[in-house]
């Protein structure tokens, strides 16, 4: 592979304004103009973080505020059109990066996209162990909606109880899924810390990614189901 040049988090190594080599991190060392963030830069790099799943959110926020003070359009009013455009684009990237990394679910979904090129939205899949229970819940849900339309008070009371019970079961399932996800976060982070590049490492990474993806898929299904029940009960 040869020597890898240290990558700058910038679109180009040359300043758009004075054409000199950019020495600074976000601004040109020569003319002090703000420089565009690279389109290919991932959100972890944006915050100077390794691709780990456990993130200190307080630290993330501190860094977000710090970078906001660097890029926000408020500080570029009255500057040239190009500088304002760069500030706007960089702020937009920064805000999206923060929003994505702040939330653990969005964070892992984003990591999957980076590592495995997964589709934008992971489709929901019913957890196999709850398959029959879910079929039953869906029946209850339909009955409940029908009872609502017919103003059938008795069925509504009974159905309401059943649905509340189902909600508890689903909430427990979601908690279990999230617990396992948290374990996988640890496993993933350990793999990253290893800095190994052998086959075993690659296989372990792929296994972890696959399991996380399946968990997210089930979680998406359960969440959707919970939402339907909550809406019906409201």
């Amino acid at each position, binding site marked *: 592979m040869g020597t890898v040049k240290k990558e700058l988090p910038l679109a180009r190594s040359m300043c758009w304004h004075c054409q000199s080599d950019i020495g600074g991190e976000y601004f040109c060392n020569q003319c002090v103009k703000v420089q565009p963030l690279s389109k290919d830069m991932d959100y972890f790099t944006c915050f100077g973080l390794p691709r780990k799943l456990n993130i200190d959110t307080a630290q993330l926020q501190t860094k977000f505020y710090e970078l*906001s003070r660097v890029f926000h359009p*408020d500080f570029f*009013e009255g500057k040239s059109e190009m500088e304002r455009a760069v500030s706007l684009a960089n702020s937009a990237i920064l805000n999206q990066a923060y*929003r994505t990394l702040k939330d653990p679910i969005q964070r892992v979904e984003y990591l999957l996209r980076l590592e495995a090129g997964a589709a934008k939205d992971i489709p929901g899949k019913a957890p196999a162990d709850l398959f029959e229970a879910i079929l039953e819940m869906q029946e209850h849900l339909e009955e409940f909606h029908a009872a609502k339309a017919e103003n059938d008070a008795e069925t509504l009371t009974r159905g309401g109880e059943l649905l509340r019970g189902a909600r508890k079961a689903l909430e427990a399932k979601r908690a279990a899924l999230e617990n396992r996800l948290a374990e996988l976060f640890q496993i993933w982070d350990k793999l990253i810390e290893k800095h190994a590049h052998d086959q075993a490492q690659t296989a372990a990474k792929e296994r972890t990614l696959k399991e996380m993806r399946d968990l997210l898929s089930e979680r998406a299904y359960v969440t959707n189901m919970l939402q339907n029940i909550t809406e019906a009960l409201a």
Partner: protein
Amino acid sequence: MARIVGIDLGTTNSLVAYMNGKTPTVIPGPDGRTLVPSIVAYTPSGFLTGDAAKEQLVRNPEHTVYSVKRFMGKGLADVTQELRYFPFKLTEQNGVIRLQIGNKALTPPEISAMVLKELKARAEAFFGEEIRKAVITVPAYFNDSQRQATKDAGKIAGLEVVRIVNEPTAASLAYGLQKRTQGLIAVYDLGGGTFDISILKLKGGIFEVLATNGNTHLGGDDFDRRLVDVMMQDLKAKHGLSVEGRPELQQELRVRAEQAKCRLSSDTEAVVEVPLPDGKGRYRRTFTRSELEKLVDDLVEKTLTPCRQALADAALTATDVDEVVLVGGSTRMPLVQQRVQALFGKTPHCELNPDEVVALGAAVQADILSGGIQDMLLLDVTPLTLGIETMGGVMSSLIRRNTTIPTSAKELFTTFVDGQTSVDIHILQGERELAKDNRSLARFQLKIPPLPAGVPRIEVTFMLDANGILSVTARDVRTGEVQSIEVKPSYGLTDQEVERMIRDSFVYAKQDIQERQRIEAMNEAESMLRATEKALARAGNLATPEERAAIQEAVANLKSTMAGADHRAIREAIEKLDKASYSLAEKLMNTTLQEALKDKKLSDV
């Protein structure tokens, strides 16, 4: 850098403020008053604004417009429910409401521009210099069309709107600056026509909005109407009187209702007296505070749902909030204060003047933008989900509500049919599933090179800037070519309309007679130049070399006078050009006539 002022363009009152060293300060008028009523009246001698217009409310109700903020960025269908409360006539053209005043049909941005001009003049008198830049506040829950309409109003008034700031967040800036608060705060902002709730995290000079919600059609005006409804029933029952066709009476009732409501914030009883038409004497009615509270209870209750939603969106509970700040004149009502206190479980702060705090915050933001204050930064959010219409009339969301702005979203488009050359895109804003239940913002057509289905790949970027205003760009992924997009707003003015209004606004202002004459002369000169250019292009060969030279000289002369401010010089130059081009015009007329006759003969054959 040019001075930037902060403006609160309110439903009922407007203010302009500036940064006096480190203290935001409202600029008073010559009479010492800080509030400018957001009212515009048309009289035979011209347009009046502010206090002068307020005097016309009852005297000249059909020509006096108020609460125009309720119509910003809206179509007629949006406001049919409340039309009966307004004594002036409304129509619609191209998705924009027009207010019929005298023989003029003016749009809400044009009316707002008159109020802005009043504030601009006030600031200019205060500083003794021209003011060209402003920060203007809007309700946080304003959608893109309403924000754009506000920006247009600024432009028409001759102001560059360097930033649109949300009212509750502006208030938080003023509050945070004064109190040096840290932690979580909720800003409850109930004004004359709109309600907003914003939850913010204040930390080390950063004001990060976590969630915002509201109702752009709920405010003190609605409280007044409840009192007006009671009085209208009384009048019908006791005096057989209807306000229909009696705009003076209707307006009198509204003004008295507002006064009674305000009094009931400090007193427990208020008496309303209204003189009746047709010699029917006087109408007298006593309202008690508890009666008013019963009448508006459901309206106050209606503000609590957005509060709960904002808390849920921020993943917080009411007890997490450290401080609650009240903004807007309607928060003077004891009932409102009680309800807010009950919801958040703590006494709300109302030490800052609720009428002024938003304008003060706008001045703080203006100072940040001018490079004055450097340790404060506001990170605001978009209040509504942005999306596009997809198959089956469903909205697919691109940017979720409460996303920190600026932000952008990219979407890849392709074709379904071989050789398809365009894709229609419909942009929406709102929280509902179906496109038809959300607000239509704009439509545009994406141009696509004719290729087999699925091959073209056009990437469209939707960018929400720091004002919460949308812009759209498109790029062909295959060629990298950038496409310019012409977006047609669903409820807004086109750029050309705004340009025309900027000119018209000068014509309307009676104090700007000089300027008006210059503008009129300029308009005439421009059309004269265009006509001459056309004539030369079409029939230049008909003119003798001497005539051509004379015309060109006259054109150059006119152009040089247009650079100046003297309308008489422009008029003289127009006349000279008219004379120089007279013979050419005559020849042109003859040939056109001949051509017309020739055509006639041909068609007759």
